[in-house]
């Protein structure tokens, strides 16, 4: 994993941004300057001030507090999505890549069919079946994310399964499951890790997009996409309402994609 003399700036910058964002979000879980849902009619559309660092929205709610909570919601949804996608993606990819044959053909064609749908559209289908809400969004997006992970894991498994050390493990008497998950799986982690970073990105964007459309997180719970959609009505009156949640989304995505890029390059 050593990249030689050249410093990996992507890693440094990406790591710093992601680190700062994580600190910001973790603080948000325990402390926010105001109650994110408390309305203060006197502070309606209050501008940026020392009292309200990012100003207030149309109900007089403190935007900083809402951004802190909202970023947390977005991140949790993204984490859940990526977890589901990775977990089932690994199982699917491992089985198809390792065994091959007719099972591989069938599962991968289904996989391709799911992959051909834009993930938001697919999630919309699931939402209309499951109803809207935070958990439903996690499940819907998670399912939409499985195919990309399955493909990556499958190709790595195909690469590894003909290596001599796998043959050797088989000769030593290791069973299929043991070979798949103890011998081969760790060898896919480098590739998987950068895929997870990129998946995180897409999940953040997808969650924001879904909430923007009003089918994700339900009000009054704060979420970055939801805030953006509420802010568009007041874009000229209170630009800070749209700018700050947008900025946080940009920083989150930028941090993860720089990290993912850096990890890819380290391989």
């Amino acid at each position, binding site marked *: 994993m050593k990249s030689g003399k050249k410093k990996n700036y992507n890693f440094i910058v990406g790591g710093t941004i992601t680190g700062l964002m994580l600190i910001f979000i973790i603080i948000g879980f325990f402390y926010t300057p105001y109650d994110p849902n408390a309305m203060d009619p006197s502070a309606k559309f209050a501008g940026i001030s020392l009292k309200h660092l990012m100003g207030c929205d149309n109900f007089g709610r403190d935007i900083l507090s809402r951004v802190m909570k909202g970023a947390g919601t977005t991140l949790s949804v993204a984490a859940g999505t990526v977890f589901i996608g990775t977990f089932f993606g690994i199982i699917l990819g491992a089985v198809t890549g390792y065994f091959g*044959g007719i099972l591989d053909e069938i599962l991968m064609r289904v996989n391709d069919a799911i992959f051909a749908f834009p993930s938001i559209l697919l999630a919309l289908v699931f939402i209309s079946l499951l109803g809207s809400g935070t958990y439903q969004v996690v499940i819907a997006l998670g399912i939409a994310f499985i195919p990309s992970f399955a493909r990556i894991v499958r190709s790595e498994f195909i690469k590894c399964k003909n*290596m*001599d*050390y796998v*043959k*050797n*493990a*088989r*000769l*030593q*008497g*290791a*069973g299929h499951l*043991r070979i798949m998950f103890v*011998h081969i799986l*760790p*060898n896919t*982690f480098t590739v998987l890790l950068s895929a997870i970073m990129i998946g995180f990105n897409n999940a953040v964007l997808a969650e924001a997009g879904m909430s923007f459309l009003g089918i994700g997180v339900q009000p009054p719970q704060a979420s970055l996409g939801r805030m953006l959609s509420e802010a568009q009505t007041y874009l000229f009156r209170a630009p800070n309402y749209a700018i700050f949640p947008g900025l946080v989304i940009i920083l989150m995505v930028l941090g993860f994609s720089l990290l993912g890029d850096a990890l890819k390059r380290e391989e």
Partner: protein
Amino acid sequence: MEKNLILQVKDLNIEFHDHLIPETVVYDFDLDLRVGEIVGLVGESGSGKSMSALAIAGLLSRKDMKKRGQILFDGVDILTCERNVLRKIQGNDIGIIFQEPMTSLNPLKKIGWQVEEALRIHTELSKEERYYRVIEMLRDVELEDAERIYHQYPHELSGGMRQRVMIAAAMICNPKILIADEPTTALDVTIQAQIVELLKRLNREKQTSILFISHDLSLVRQLCRRVMVMQGGYVVETGDTEEIFNHPREAYTQKLIAAIPKVVRKS
């Protein structure tokens, strides 16, 4: 069946069935291996040596490769026996060393873990007992500093050391047969000689039969009393090593012998 015959292969044919037109790669392969004997198997690349070896180790997929004939290991036919019987034989009684020490060890697992694998699967030994067995085995293949190597990763070792580790992993369950598939091809000449000496010693001390595959006739001459020559899937000549070296019957064998570089004094 002769009493000290450990392995008997009769009329083995190997066909690939993973494409529409089956392709035969080994024809009518016969082999008798006695306890404590070293048999050489020589031939050019693609002559079917490794395929025969993999078949004997039971590592060819039963689905894609059609095998006719018999591989009797201690009276049990490897080609037709139950899977769990095969696995028991594979883990306990057959060891294999591959050509490329880079790919025959799992890059992400510690040496100790990999050498231990067969013990972990086939025996009920405790962690400490396994540790001592591994250390003992690593010392037995003439690796200095066995305790340190136990905790190292494959990339930290040289090619010769890795090949010794492979031998240790193959020999840990005291197998009755060791298949050495070009174990010295990737090593330089001095290390080659050391590995050959090591194999000779292990064969003498533990009475392990060795099937030594190589295209290097001079090595085979040092190590084996009996040799088989393969070409294009057929065994073209078989017999006493010295006999074959001194009076090769086949034109192909003559060519192979002529290909050995000789030291000639300039006059």
